[in-house]
């Protein structure tokens, strides 16, 4: 039931959403931000502040971006390049800092 960030964020990364998120569940890749679906509380505070309208609820994502619903999850459950383990639910982006890598979907975009 989380919010997801889709392709319009790629290479923009305004990060206003990170300032709004009350649970600090938006993590920074190299070219895009990702919402942790296990940590998101579905409050919607991030959606209106995104200058490129990249954020929506997972059940209302534009058809052309539906692959990003799964891709936001993948960022946390799959092992990203250069890491030994999945990120999982670290409990806040301020704890991890910028992750600095992206999912294959975003890297190939």
């Amino acid at each position, binding site marked *: 039931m989380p919010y997801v960030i889709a392709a319009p964020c790629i290479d923009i990364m305004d990060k206003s959403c990170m300032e709004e998120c009350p649970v600090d569940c938006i993590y920074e890749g190299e070219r895009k931000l990702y919402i942790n679906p296990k940590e998101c*509380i579905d409050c919607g*505070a991030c959606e209106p502040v995104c200058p490129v309208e990249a954020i929506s609820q997972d059940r209302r994502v534009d058809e052309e971006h539906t692959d990003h619903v799964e891709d936001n999850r993948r960022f946390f459950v799959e092992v990203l390049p250069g890491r030994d383990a999945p990120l999982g*639910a670290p409990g806040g982006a301020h704890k991890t800092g910028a992750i600095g890598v992206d999912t294959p979907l975003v890297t190939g975009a």
Partner: protein
Amino acid sequence: MSAVDVDLLIVGAGPVGLYGAFYAGVRGLSVAVVDSLSQVGGQVSALYPEKQILDVAGFPSVTGRTLIGNLVEQAAAYDPLYLLGQEAQRLERTVVDDGPDLLVVTTSSGTEVTCRAVVVTGGIGTFTPRALPAGEQLLGRGLEYFVPSAQAYVGTDVVIVGGGDSAVDWALMLQPVAASVTLVHRREAFRAHHGSLQALRATDVRIITGAQVSETVGDEALEAVVVTVKGEPPQTLPCQRLVAALGFTANLGPLREWGLELHDNRHLVVDSAMRTNVTGVFAAGDVNDYDGKVRLIAVGFGEVATAVNNAAVHLDPAAQLFPGHSTDLGALVPA
């Protein structure tokens, strides 16, 4: 340091905690409710007081504010003790041979709450106001994160920072009594309820968008703030009261040290009686987890009724689990 002695302590004054306070009263238990915020209502009050909630049983549509007001009124019949603006921190246990163990919860204000059962309705955890970097050193000497009453603002020049419901509500509340009110928001668009924003625009409150408070002036007390609009020279405004309503961050906080079994590093695992793995500690609402969990206010209300009734049996094993029907209780509200 103060001391409180109750049968049941509820940790978290959100909708589920407030309903738990009511149910504790139904069971004849004395109850205290602790919350780190200085207002009741948890997420509902802090994040979406004006949102229409459409999925609470019996209410086709109710604003967050009204729902919380009603819950407070419902619980008031039993006079719960509210310990607001303090965080439940340490949990200590004294083993009692012929009854439930005594649990002592110490809050961030040093209040020692002695009880025999705890129901954690902590939602997403302790809310911490997001700091205003430019003013942190003047906290309590001009800078505030909450406006519980308008009294301290009479005749002052007020600057409020933020674009959500709290910022706009406080501007509306202070405008009639303050010498001046200025609302400073970083973006052009406001997240606040459209109706409140319209009401605000009809007043003499000055609204500056695309702007930040970049500096605060004053040593002992706040005297002025510097407001910077992108691409314009900074302007200094006289200001004795600065209110930062920049939202909150939430974290499970000190509950992590209570020895509770966690799931996904943020939820408390409970059984079908809402018991955690720590004897005498129950959990209900968004904070708990079990197979099939659905995180909705409606579900939390049911869970906390289950938790409080099971806590009543934990306190007195001879007591019945079923509380009786409210219709059998006679007048719940003393005449």
